């Protein structure tokens, strides 16, 4: 049903949601159980289907445990230079990414994952997340600002 490569890919997606390895495994395991319980034999794209299960399951778990870290959407921001290309101008070391990873919100990690690992375009990402494009662009804009600030800070820390 899923080979080793696919299972690892799903695990990484879980990691983008939870930000933590043990929790990622638990999330993957329980999502696979849900997938198997569901009548999934006639599903064409099993990977896309289980990713939806993983995401919905994680959101449910977050709601249960009140782990909501949704950011307020800033309506005043202008959508200039806010697609995922804007993120490509940033440079960072693995140390910096690792340091910032858990400080990001779930949505920010998801955006990073689909942009960097899966190679999604902004439109594909908006469709998968079920989010209006404008909202997503705003999130990307805020993410970029946040990352730049974090990386500048960590660069300064390393330099001093």
């Amino acid at each position, binding site marked *: *049903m*899923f080979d*080793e490569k696919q*299972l*690892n890919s799903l*695990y*990484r997606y879980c*990691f*983008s949601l939870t930000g933590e*390895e043990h929790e*990622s*495994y638990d999330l*993957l*395991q329980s999502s*696979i*159980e849900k997938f*198997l319980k569901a009548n999934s*034999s006639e599903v064409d794209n099993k990977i896309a289907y289980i990713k939806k299960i993983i995401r919905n399951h994680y959101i449910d778990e977050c709601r249960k445990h009140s782990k909501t870290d949704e950011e307020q959407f800033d309506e005043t921001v202008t959508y200039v230079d806010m697609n995922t290309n804007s*993120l*490509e101008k*940033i*440079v*960072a*070391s*693995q140390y*910096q*990414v*690792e340091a910032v*990873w858990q400080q990001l919100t779930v949505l920010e990690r998801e955006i*990073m*994952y689909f*942009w*960097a*690992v899966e190679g999604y375009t902004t439109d594909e990402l908006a469709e998968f997340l079920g989010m209006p494009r404008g909202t997503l662009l705003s999130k990307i804009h805020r993410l970029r600002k946040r*990352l730049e600030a974090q990386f500048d800070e960590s660069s300064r820390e390393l330099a001093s």
Partner: protein
Amino acid sequence: MKQELKNTVKDYVESKQLSSEQLQDLTKMLNTKHENKQRESLFNMRAIAAVLVLSLALGIFWGVSTINHADVSQLIAEEVSSNHLKMKPMEVSSTSLNEVRAYFGKLDFSLSSSQFVANNNLQLIGGRYCSIQGETAAQLRMQDEVTGNIHVVYQAPYNKDLFRELPNLQQGQKPVRHFVNGIGVDVWVEKGILFAHSFDQ
């Protein structure tokens, strides 16, 4: 070492992978559930097959039962009309019922005269052995005294399990009449004997 954020994130995320133990557990879970589903599917298929077989059996039983109850006189009529059209040679020729009765000594019942036949002005001319629905029967040839047409009257022991309910003259019922291949056939029970009467229309 700094590089483009996209590559850094990709490298970082892809460095995360399931341990061999975790992979083994997940694979086992997937295979077990898959096998269970296959087993469940096989079970469902067997259940459906069983239901189909049962339905078929019930259908056949119902069909046979229906035939026995409703169409047994029709079956008799079809057999009798076929015999009537073949009109095989008589084995005994006589106008005396006693003589003809003597010829049919192998029967398990005694040939009887029928009120219904008597009412039709038919004269006995002979007969031969035959069978109706597997029961040994006497086939009596009669001739209409007015028209000269040949009529055939069959007599067989009335086996209720085989012939089911048929009109009984002694209970005031009238023979049931069928027409098969241009031959008229009356079927009834009288004095514990199954009678069938075939005639050209």
